[in-house]
């Protein structure tokens, strides 16, 4: 398989602390509501305790990215390492990518009237650094992996609550959260 960087989200380790999301903002200073990485609490049908299990999600740097395919001005390109790059200076702000991405990764920046999205911190990668979100995670629940060599047992591509789009083939893998054994109170 070709090299393809991916985010590995270990929801068993993830403590939903939002550190990754803020670390991203710390690096890129996105304007209000222009969120590249968000931490989503799982619905109670998936995990029964409110706001206690999460998926940290950004652009999935798909093998076959819709954003790239629908862009009329070729503002997107895919690097050899699989990272999907948006070149904002070419963007005309038509919104095609924003409407087409089923994962909601590209966001509209109203200040510059253009789209933008998670870059996988490719400039940091090229400088020998980890993506800011990955480096920030205090519990190593968010990692950068290469799908060409990734073989974590039990990891899945489409966990409950994460939309399934095999044609896009999102470059993301998950481990599901666990429940503790609960010793409840006898008096209530």
């Amino acid at each position: 398989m070709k090299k393809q960087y991916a985010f590995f989200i270990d929801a068993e380790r993830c403590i939903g602390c939002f550190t990754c999301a803020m670390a991203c903002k710390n690096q890129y200073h996105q304007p209000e509501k222009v969120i590249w990485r968000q931490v989503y609490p799982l619905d109670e049908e998936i995990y029964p305790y409110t706001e206690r299990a999460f998926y940290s999600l950004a652009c999935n740097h798909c093998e076959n990215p819709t954003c790239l395919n629908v862009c009329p001005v070729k503002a997107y390109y895919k690097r050899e390492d699989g990272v999907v790059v948006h070149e904002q200076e070419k963007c005309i702000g038509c919104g095609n990518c924003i409407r087409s991405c089923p994962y909601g990764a590209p966001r509209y920046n109203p200040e510059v009237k253009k789209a933008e999205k998670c870059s996988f911190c490719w400039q940091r990668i090229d400088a020998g650094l980890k993506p800011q979100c990955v480096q920030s995670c205090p519990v190593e629940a968010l990692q950068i992996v290469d799908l060409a060599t990734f073989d974590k047992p039990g990891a899945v591509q489409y966990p409950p609550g994460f939309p399934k789009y095999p044609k896009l083939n999102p470059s993301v893998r998950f481990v599901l959260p666990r429940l503790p054994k609960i010793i409840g109170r006898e008096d209530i």
Partner: protein
Amino acid sequence: MNNHKEENFMTTTNNAAEVQPGSCPLSRRNFVKGLLAAGLVANLPCGLLRPLQSEAGEIVYGGDYETFRNACPRNCYDTCSIKTFVKDGVVQFIEGATESTFTRGGLCVKGYGYTRRPYSPDRIKYPMVQEGRGSGNWKRVSWNEAMERIAKKILEIQDKDGSLLGMALSKYSGNFGITNYGVEGMMSSLGYTTRLTGTPCWPAGIDAQNFDMGDMWCNDPEDMVNARYVILWGGNAAWNSVHSVKYVYEAQRRGAKIVVIDPLLTQQAAKADEYWQIRTSTDGALALGMARHILDAKLYDRDWVMANSIGFEEFADYLRGNITVEWAAKESGIPAANIIALAEEFATAKPATIWLGYGLQRHVNGGATVRAIDALVAMTGNVGKIGGGARYGHLRTWGFNYHALLQKQPEGAKGVPGKAEVKGDFHFAGGDDAAALSYSDRSLNINKTAQVILDTDDPPIRMLWVACKNPFSQDFDRNKMIKAFEKLEMVVTVDQFFNETVAMSDIVLPVTTLFEEWTINASYWHYWLSINERAIQPMYEAKSDIQIAATLSNTMNELRPGSCTFPTEIDSREWMIKEFNQGIYDLFGISSWEDLKNGPAKAKMHPASWHDLKFGTPSGKYEFKSELAEQWGNKALPEYVAPRKQNNKYRLLTPHTKFGLHSQFVNLDWSEEFYPEPFVYIHPDMAAEKDIKDGDVVRIFNSIGEVTTTAKLSTVVPADAILMYEAWFKNNPYNVQNVVDDTSSDMGAYKTGQPGVAIHDQFADVAKV
């Protein structure tokens, strides 16, 4: 990209290499220009109080940054070592210091928001005066005018009362920098004043551990990986010490069982092997029930107890005569069979450790609870062991000079007759000079700030100086606080944002953020030490606490020579250097403070507290029976103390949110992005009883006040409790202190000067609006 670099990304333990000058040709957002322009505008009268418009597109990692060492100065276990990346005099982004094996290259959701803080449009930029407290009618004044108003008031008090006891200080942990103790120094340099002393944080547990072991001293958190059994009791590390969680995980990976005991199903509980939903404030009963079973089953460490403790036989007699597992089950709500199983597992796993959270002791029986849990750890021989310990906190790395703190009163100053030591958790250095033998400061309970302002006369508190603290957001019984402030003739608050206390002040002074001033930061949990460099010039007209003190001293001495002993001009960097001594250098294995420019240093301490089994108690041994405890009004043995009597329909719990620390962080626009509004969490059964649906606006009320907010139904909270997270939102009147009263906890006076406060022994009712 070469393979070596690639491997860096793929490992889970290795962190970022040093930053290399960037290879990135992309244009950067015109952010820097925007900020520089804002700085120019700020120098004009009536500067901006609105968000900046950024005009350019994305900013990216560009390389070629100037780097500085900073440290998070908040009251937090983690006290993270920060690496700050600066370009064109502007903080571009920050990271955790990779040199610290504790921080390990990362910060937390709060910490990463610091990049925004100095440049927040909401920041207090200049000294300002409010015409009419709470009116919002603020007027910018010069530092000279602000200082003159303050100095004249101080002199007026001095002339009227013959002392400065009418001037009080409300300061705690808003900034734990060592040089920030210059605020206390400033007060001393003016005369004998009134101090709000003690701590709302952890005092009952401090006393408890001092009675048992002669000090509060925890194992290195990084040593938790060596434990074979970990109980996290009454603490939510996943929110309040995110960097400790990896050690819990590692212990688990190596085979340790992780048990969380908490009234709430916290984030940490969700990550445990077992979660025990205990009835609030009955933790002591559970610990003693376990102890009774360990005693009966002869699973205690007899050799350890014989060699290293006193009073064990009396403790055993107390357990046999007063405690049964069945009683503990009834009291705590935990089934007896589980108590027995946990007791046996804990007693036979070697080593086993308990992390005692601070929430555990914010109760009327909090100190007694900590003593009971300490006893459990000691009787199983786990004190003094690697991978063991009753982990609570420590101050072993705080042996600085306290140069900023220790200032002399002016000649002829008068105060409370006689020498009385002002205590506090971080007040290490008492004034031993001759003058201090004649007079003292007046010491009042910080946990009853509103009440003592109302009650104190002769002389009354006429003026309040607030620094590193937000009484309206953090002190208890807010409605009473409003009445108390009405009694004050002048309130001066030093802060960064227009918070609730600033709103009730007459004068506000803008204080520097961590990036704008020099200081030193140590942790009360891990063993690392960081310096905090000035990474950028102070924005607008902000000054640090010690620079404010120097500015005030200048004005005081102009108006009345000799009225203030604080130096009128200081070099903040020099003052940071003055805090170091050979003891600190030796402890951290550094030859000079300048070594810390290369990254944080870790104390050369044994990872196990009390490893030499030489305890600091009067007997030199672990004291199951403590006469000192008895002298301070508590039981000599770690006996059970009943919880506070319920005085309303439900329990009310108001712990921290993960997005903030007390009233800091949540107000920042970057934080609002992820945490825009507060909720009250109630169990579906309670909601059904009260006809409340998810999303309904509800009132939470009791005899002292009420809070209105949106309900979220959740089973993380038991059916008999209401859960609200403490926070200050800048556009929302939500304030949990409306419904939290100032009832004292059982311990704290011995080591911190005042008893703690029963923050989690609160009760309230709820109704749909």
